[in-house]
């Protein structure tokens, strides 16, 4: 393998992957490949299989056939999990017992420390991840005191704290307030600028649109489109549809009913 090939070898590959949930086929033969430094959005309607596709890619849902590879290693024998940062689809970071922002984010560092000691370098990584998402001042607060957008920022910090090369995010913008959407877009822009590879499940492109290199659209568990992000059509293109573009200037342009 030459240096060039290694450089462009995909970090994530799905080949003819099929998966089912409760006996119902959800993925019917998906091909997906994400190359280093790429930002790929997985789009599609509810039930099209986008969440199942990323959950199959990281082994949460077993593939009934086909091949999944992470960094060129078959998923079954992949062990280097610190290279993968995962943001599951959640509306809350809270569990059944109170936990602080810093405690939640620290749990992401286990990808590197495993069963070893939590050292100074690890505490510094937690601090850096919190600063990246603008939550350093809330480190000692309970997560139950946070807004929906702040929960999402905590979940992203938890994924970033292992300093991953591939970031997989499932609907990171769901239920997120405007201020947090802007922080998240800025965080992602920094990660991409630093060379991270990103696979995002999105309901719509929204504020992340300018970052996205490629969009893969799913329908009924099949890939419908794989290429440049689609332009907004139908009601999404209407002036009344409120898309917020943080890159468009200091004051976001809002054309929705409430503006």
């Amino acid at each position: 393998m030459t240096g060039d090939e290694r450089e462009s070898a995909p970090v994530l590959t799905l080949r003819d992957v099929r998966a089912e949930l409760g006996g119902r086929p959800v993925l019917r033969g998906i091909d997906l490949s994400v190359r280093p430094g790429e930002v790929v959005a997985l789009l599609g309607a509810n039930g099209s299989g986008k969440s199942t596709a990323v959950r199959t890619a990281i082994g949460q849902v077993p593939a009934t056939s086909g091949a999944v590879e992470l960094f060129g290693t078959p998923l079954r024998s992949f062990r280097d999990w610190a290279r993968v940062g995962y943001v599951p689809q959640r509306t809350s970071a809270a569990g059944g017992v109170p936990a602080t922002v810093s405690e939640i984010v620290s749990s992401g560092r286990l990808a590197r420390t495993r069963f070893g000691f939590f050292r100074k370098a690890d505490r510094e990584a937690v601090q850096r991840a919190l600063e990246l998402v603008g939550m350093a001042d809330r480190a000692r607060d309970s997560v139950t005191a946070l807004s929906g957008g702040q929960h999402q920022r905590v979940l992203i910090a938890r994924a970033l704290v292992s300093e991953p090369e591939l970031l997989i995010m499932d609907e990171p913008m769901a239920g997120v307030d405007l201020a947090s959407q802007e922080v998240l877009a800025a965080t992602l822009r920094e990660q991409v600028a630093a060379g991270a590879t990103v696979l995002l499940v999105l309901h719509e492109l929204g504020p992340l649109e300018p970052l996205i290199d490629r969009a893969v659209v799913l329908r009924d568990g099949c890939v419908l489109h794989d290429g440049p992000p689609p332009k907004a059509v139908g009601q999404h293109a209407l002036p009344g549809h409120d898309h917020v573009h943080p890159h468009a200037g200091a004051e976001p342009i809002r054309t929705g009913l409430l503006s």
Partner: protein
Amino acid sequence: MDFLNYAFMQRALLAAVLVGVIAPAIGIYLVQRRQPLMGDGIGHVAMTGVGLGFLLNSSPVWMATLVSVAGSVLMELIRWYGRTRGDIALAMLFYGGMAGGVLFVNLAPGGSNANLTSYLFGSLSTVAPADVTAILVLGAAVVAVTLGLRRQLFAVSQDEEFARVTGLPVRALNLLVAVTAAVTVTVAMRVVGLILVSALMVVPVAAAQQLTRSFAATFAIAVALGVTVSIGGTITSFYEDVPPGATIVLLTIAAFAVMTALATPLARRRARATRPTGDPVECAIPATRPAGDEVGV
């Protein structure tokens, strides 16, 4: 302090302190993963072990440990493979375990439900001299697991799906929690009794989290509370001749009530402190212009 002169009280107090530490220490992970009643389930399954112990004329305590470990592993397996009917399967395990205990103890020669009473509700005299070493070894193992692996168990109990992507052996850790809970139940059985053991795993945690914001503080306060009520209940039962289990549980619930009462003003003060400065407290709705199609009558 004359109760300290009795050897059975020394043993009971030793067991009480240990149970006060380990029950909330493992219970916090069960509460965190929203399965607070798992300890209750294990307690019911352990009854079959006690019954078998009488029937086979072996130690009820060791049989209870064996059967409840097996039962907890079975519960964990049900959780993995039978998500949809998991609650029904657990219910069967609960009632099956209890029915098995009653059946086996009555099948034993000269056995009756009366033999079960001290295991069901705890008794100061259940801690036999031979048990002290076993209690200390098992208790130390539970402390080592719950404290030594606190970061890993926290991650798995907080968000199982995420923990799997960090590369942690999630299934092994879940099994470890289940087995540790089973061991805790059988250690606690002698003091609190099988029916009430789950209360000491759950209520101190519930009481502590009325006041806390972090997992670490919840853990520390729950354990401190567990030890306090266990010692308090054991001593009370010595003087008043009441079962220690019931006394300990009622003391724990009283502590929960006190902490809840303390929590309300504390939460209000914290909310004030964390509110960002300049954030409006009250709503200001701008006056709207009348709609174009509004018709004056």
